[in-house]
């Protein structure tokens, strides 16, 4: 008996020393992390090695994952390269598997779910949803439970389940007023109202979210832009006064708005996609062989479409294959949403394919006998595109049904864009005229590209604030309305 007791005491003493060493090491690691030191990761690894089951192991693992630059909210996905995502997921999995009772487990579960929604091969929205449901159902009032509820609402919103999403967002406003989750939920309700055509209510919620002061800078800028477009839509106003007009590159062939005032410019013949900021300065460039279209989502996902597939445009200027055309055949254009789904048109514009996040190639979702689509756009509810053959605008719904939206008044439509309020701009008449329609196809007005100092535009886009953008191939001119 005495021998056993001594052994037990010794073991306890060793464990205590282990824990104490880990604690000291963790202090060092945190300091290094705060200083942005390259050695922080290694120092955090050492904490785990010293005491793998100790009280600081989950902290060290999570802090280690945070060094990767984990997105805090689902809208912030898409900024990490795949290897970084995998690395972070491995670390978070260790917490969830080995240290499920640690005080950082809730946070780890929440962040793991966000990573599962990264639009790469590991995308698994069902798994993410389950993780968030478990967190939300735990009944705690913690920050992470609220964040999980926000994540669930956001997921429903992306899936077009607007009623459920609205209820969940409203619950956050009621239960956690004055929190960041509540402010984001308020802005999200504005987005949904905007998609549903409830422009005044949308403007009101955007204003509420801005007034809360709880939005981060990026979301605040987006929300301000969306409020403005909601007001414009409510007042049936389309602003066409010039804000900027510069030479954007050599023979640009396509444009996609980035945020309120930036743009991705496609230079097919040069093999380049460039990103311009609001002042026209180049802030990023990607070399892409024969780019046909550039895609940008409000929350910063960027893609390029080539005949052979879809590339992710990485923040560091690199590209990653997102999907190949595969059996679907050569591509001509596409559009992406915030979840990371990419709809693509085949070369002839007669078939529509959908690349779910994580999928390697498009799955056919629509084919329209007799229609020839170009420049598809996603308005949050449906996909709309010009039907060049029938000189109309066609809407394709998630259930693969389709319906003409605009059938009259278009002369050789060539490109189309949808603003955040669902208003449609169609470039037609050989690129000399832009006609505006509401979501139901009711004509709202026209704008001659002469007013933009152009003879013939080749593509158009709407900024997040609804400002029209035009691009002219011959002159290389990029024009933006206020």
């Amino acid at each position, binding site marked *: 008996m005495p021998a056993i007791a001594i052994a037990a005491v010794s073991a306890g003493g060793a464990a205590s020393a282990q824990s104490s060493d880990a604690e000291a090491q963790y202090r060092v690691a945190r300091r290094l992390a705060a200083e942005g030191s390259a050695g922080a990761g290694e120092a955090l690894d050492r904490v785990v090695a010293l005491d793998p089951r100790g009280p600081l192991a989950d902290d060290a693992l999570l802090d280690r994952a945070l060094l990767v630059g984990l997105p805090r909210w689902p809208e912030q996905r898409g900024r990490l390269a795949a290897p970084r995502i995998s690395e972070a997921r491995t670390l978070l999995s260790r917490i969830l598997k080995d240290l499920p009772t640690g005080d950082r487990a809730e946070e780890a579960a929440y962040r793991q779910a966000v990573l599962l929604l990264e639009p790469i091969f590991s995308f698994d929205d069902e798994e993410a949803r389950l993780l968030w449901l478990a967190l*939300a*159902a735990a*009944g705690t*009032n913690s920050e992470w439970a609220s964040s999980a509820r926000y994540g669930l609402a956001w997921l429903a919103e992306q899936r077009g389940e607007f009623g*459920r999403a*609205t*209820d*969940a*967002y*409203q*619950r956050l*406003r*009621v*239960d956690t*007023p*004055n929190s960041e989750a509540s402010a984001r939920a308020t802005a999200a309700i504005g987005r949904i109202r905007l998609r549903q055509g409830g*422009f*005044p*209510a949308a*403007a*009101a919620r*955007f*204003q*509420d979210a801005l007034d809360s002061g709880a939005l981060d800078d990026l979301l605040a800028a987006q929300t301000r832009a969306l*409020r*403005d477009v909601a*007001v414009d839509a*409510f*007042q049936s106003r389309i602003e066409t006064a010039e804000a900027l007009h510069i030479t954007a590159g050599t023979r640009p062939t396509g444009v996609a708005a980035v945020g309120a005032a930036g743009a991705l410019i496609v230079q097919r013949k040069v093999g380049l996609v460039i990103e311009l900021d609001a002042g026209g300065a180049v802030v990023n460039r990607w070399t892409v062989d024969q780019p046909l279209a550039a895609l940008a989502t409000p929350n910063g996902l960027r893609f390029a479409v080539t005949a052979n597939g879809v590339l992710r445009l990485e923040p560091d200027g690199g590209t990653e294959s997102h999907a190949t055309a595969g059996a679907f055949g050569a591509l001509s254009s596409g559009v992406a949403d915030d979840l990371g789904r990419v709809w693509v048109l085949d070369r002839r514009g007669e078939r529509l394919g959908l690349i779910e996040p994580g999928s390697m190639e498009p799955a056919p979702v629509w084919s329209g006998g007799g229609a020839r689509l170009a420049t598809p756009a996603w308005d949050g509810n449906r996909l709309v595109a010009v039907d060049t053959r029938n000189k109309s605008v066609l809407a394709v719904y998630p259930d693969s049904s389709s319906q003409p939206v605009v059938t009259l008044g278009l002369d050789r439509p060539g490109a189309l864009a949808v603003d955040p309020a669902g208003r449609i701009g169609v470039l037609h008449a050989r690129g000399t005229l832009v006609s505006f329609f509401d979501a139901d196809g009711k004509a709202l007005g026209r704008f001659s590209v002469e007013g933009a100092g152009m003879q013939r535009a080749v593509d158009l886009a709407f900024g997040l604030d609804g400002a029209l953008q035009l691009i002219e191939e011959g002159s290389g001119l990029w024009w933006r309305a206020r």
Partner: protein
Amino acid sequence: MNHLRAIGWVALLFCLFLGTAHVAAQDPPQDPVEPSEEDMPSTDVPPQDSVESAPATTRELLDSIREDLVELRFEKALAALAPLVTSPVLTEEERVEAMVLRSQTHAALGDFKSAEEDYRQILMRRPGWVPDRSLTPKKAMDRFEKVRDALIGRVRFALDPADATLWIDGREQVDTLEPLPLLAGRHTIRAARRGHDPVEQTLEVAAGENIELSIELIPNARTVILRTEPEDVEVWLDGRSVGRTARVEEFLGLGQAPAQLVLEDVPLGEHTFEFRAECRRAEKIVDALNIDLLDRAPKRYDTVRLAESYVLLTPVGGPGGAEFRVDGRTVATLPTETVQACPGERELQAVFADRVLWSERRTLVEGVPQTLEIRARPNLALVGLDRLPRELEALAATVNVFPLDADSNADFSQDSTWNALDTVQPFDLALAPDPDSPRRAAQSWWLYSPVLHSLDHLEGVPGVEKPEWRTATWGLTLVDAGGPLVVESLDSTPGRPDVGSRVLKAAGVPVADVSALREQLTAAAAQGAIELEWTKPDGGTATGRVLATVGPWLRELGPRGIDDAFRAAWAVVAADSQASDAPAALANLALVFSARGEHALAVRTWQRVDWPERDGIGAGTVAYYLGRELQALGRDEEAVEALRRAASSRARTGTDDGPPVAPAARDRLADLGQR
């Protein structure tokens, strides 16, 4: 002859006995003058130890000697007396008694010379001593008178005032009416009486002389009689309280005399007499007190009449039916117009259903009416201090402070200490100084909330203002769009800006954006209305007076701890005073309970919130939060029932124009597996 001698001896023995008793009883020592060495009889003194070694005490020796005399053993008696008289162990009384026995023995033996010497010794010690003349042989008596005439003089003192105290050579004289025998020589005479200057002088007394000595003491103070109407008036003399006046008994059927206070021996000079009584105007007499040597009667002042005095108090506010108390006595029921109260420092209170809602100590000044804002506020128990210190003055102005005695060793950093406190007055907050506050740092405190059973460490002055439980809403949702644009309107009353209107001016002031308009709306909230000018959606201009709606306000929760404690305290006050905003206060309290995980308390509190079904905050709001708390408690069936009511309501939360609760209720129902 033998027979006569025998009778004479018996008489002598009787005389011995009485004579001893006479010395002890009637001739107390008056003069402690020690006889000189040559005055002492030349008797052989036995060795000290022979006396000390005797088995008997002095009293037994004296009794034995007295027995010897009775038995006619004179020689033996003298032999015993000789050493005894000079023995240093004798008291003065015993020594004189021994001398008297010896003088009588000498006289009995016919030794008058020795007897004379004895008389001299005795008179040196007791100038007033006289042998019993009827039992002393004439020759011996003659010898005594001769000695006395040679040693003693007599002084008759006439004192003014007669009750002055007389000291002769430092010894107080009890009886000064008869002439006092004094040994010839110089004596120190002192006479004194309170209220008079004392007199001290020397007196030369010659043997056989009779002296008349008058001593007049000069007064230096005077008795004063102060009379007041009414009685029980406190009298202050030169700033010091000296007593209260009282009625004397009815005198000779002349009716009730004024109450009076007699102040004896008030020093001469200028004095201020002040007269104070509850609810009476204070009076004052300033007088130079002097003395008339011919009339030393007490000085009587005219009766001082203290007029009634009061202050008019006007209590404003407070719940109807509350008792208004002054110094603990109920004087009115609120609401009331005015109340009379006596001047001075008073404790004023409003009490409703045995709860003190408002309490203040105020100094009331006659003729200065006071308006009292009766506002129910929390009761704060202050442990170990009489009043809040200066740094917490702001707090003192918003709570009722009740000092609370407590064990100085109690540890108020422990919940258990607070839970064990037994207080008469129910309190909503309690504060105790933290004895461990760092030196040179501001005092820190322990703040306890009996409502929440929470204990917080308080470093600074907390936010102590009464929370608003209601707020004004205008029913307009505005966005910035080149000016404040109305995008939602909860009120379709004509004359208000429609959706799509752009507000140009508010209260006559141009408003460029939503922020500027909100400032004007906030400023106008108290008035409940504002003049607006706006452009209509069709382009026309309109003006109108827009009314605000005042409704409940569910406040966003601040940081846990101190804010919660104060919010809870104020909520309890609102509920206990049955204030009009009590439901909103209770709702806010329920939110605090919920945030602290006290879901059962939150349920009970929500069940007390009685709001009607209405747009904005109403019954649906209660239903939502009730459902939420029941859900947290796992009472799913009840939760579903409550949430269904919320889901079908048009209720909102926060304010009347806040977020709707129905969608949130639907989301919760989904959590509970309900469609």
